[in-house]
């Protein structure tokens, strides 16, 4: 076994030689026993790193995940979930009502352009009215009334 092969196996398979492919196990053990000091040192570092990772995984978190903390999260989540459920139900009812009213394809096909036309027409109409009156009156409503409605009528 070459140092390169050993190194690759160590990185890919970890430091438990028992978990390496069986064809390499015996060879790897004898290689390690007689390996140069630098490779042995690297091996020990890899073993230490694995140990540290395992050890830190077993160390309880701070603050600990105790039943009080869990209960608080569960209760909060359930409360929000209940609200969400209600909101979804309301949303579904609203969307069902919307589809009942406007879901008809004919309504959308003819209704939407008609509505757009109405808005456009009103807007243009309003502009025309304004342009008719503009030369004679000030822009505010009171002046308009004062111009067209004689004082005697009050």
């Amino acid at each position, binding site marked *: 076994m070459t140092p390169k092969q050993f190194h690759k196996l160590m*990185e*890919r398979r970890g430091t438990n030689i028992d978990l390496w492919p069986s064809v390499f196990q015996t060879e790897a053990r004898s290689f390690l026993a007689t390996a140069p*000091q630098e490779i042995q*040192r690297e091996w*020990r*570092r*890899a*073993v*230490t*790193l694995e*140990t*540290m*990772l*395992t*050890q*830190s*995984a077993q*160390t309880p*978190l*701070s*603050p600990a*995940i105790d039943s009080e*903390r*869990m209960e*608080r*999260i*569960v209760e*909060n*989540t*359930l409360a*929000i*979930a*209940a609200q*969400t*459920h209600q909101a*979804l139900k309301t949303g579904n009812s609203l969307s069902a009502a919307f589809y009942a009213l406007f879901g008809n394809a004919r309504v959308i096909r003819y209704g939407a352009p008609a509505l757009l036309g109405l808005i456009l027409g009103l807007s243009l109409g309003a502009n025309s009215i304004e342009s008719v009156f503009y030369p004679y009156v000030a822009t505010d409503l009171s002046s308009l009334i004062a111009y067209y409605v004689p004082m005697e009528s009050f």
Partner: protein
Amino acid sequence: MAYETQSKKTSAKAMDAWEDAALIEEISGGNHRAFQVLMRRHLPMSLGVAQRMVGNPTDADEIAQEAFLKVWTGAARWRSDGQAQFKTWFYRVVINLCIDRKRKKTTEPLDEAEDAMDPSPNSFDQISTQETARLMSDAVNALPERQKSAITLFYYSDLSGSETAQALNVSVSALDSLLVRGRRALRARLMALGILDEIGGAP
């Protein structure tokens, strides 16, 4: 319909024995009890993963809560096709929420900063264990996101290698590469701090 009526009467204790997929089915129908059972089952591990990923217990609590709310609102859309296990899907949600949280949060307010470690442990072993965990946690936190996700799920969750790959949406060989790069980076970082040589790597 008969099944639905039956399931609503089922107690939380009886549901404890149910598989995740069955609980999800119930949750999609708005069953709070099933939701509670699923939460209690997966909360400790998901909270642990989130806390290790974001390094802040308050954020971890919020992430776990948000992940479960995603389960609640998305249960109807989730379908087990034999390939997608709930657990791997759920951890993917948790990891993505952690990454999003880290991206959004550039600064950490002082009152949210993690508590300092208790300076009065009972024994030297405890100092050593806690110190090792803290150093390791710092080193893992400094990794690029993908490597950090891979290392966290592989070492700190109950997922197997192939489940971790599924949760991260990568192939098993891609996960191997992430783990190799992650361990290499951790080794380099701990060596730079003189820790690996000091503890066990000394000639």
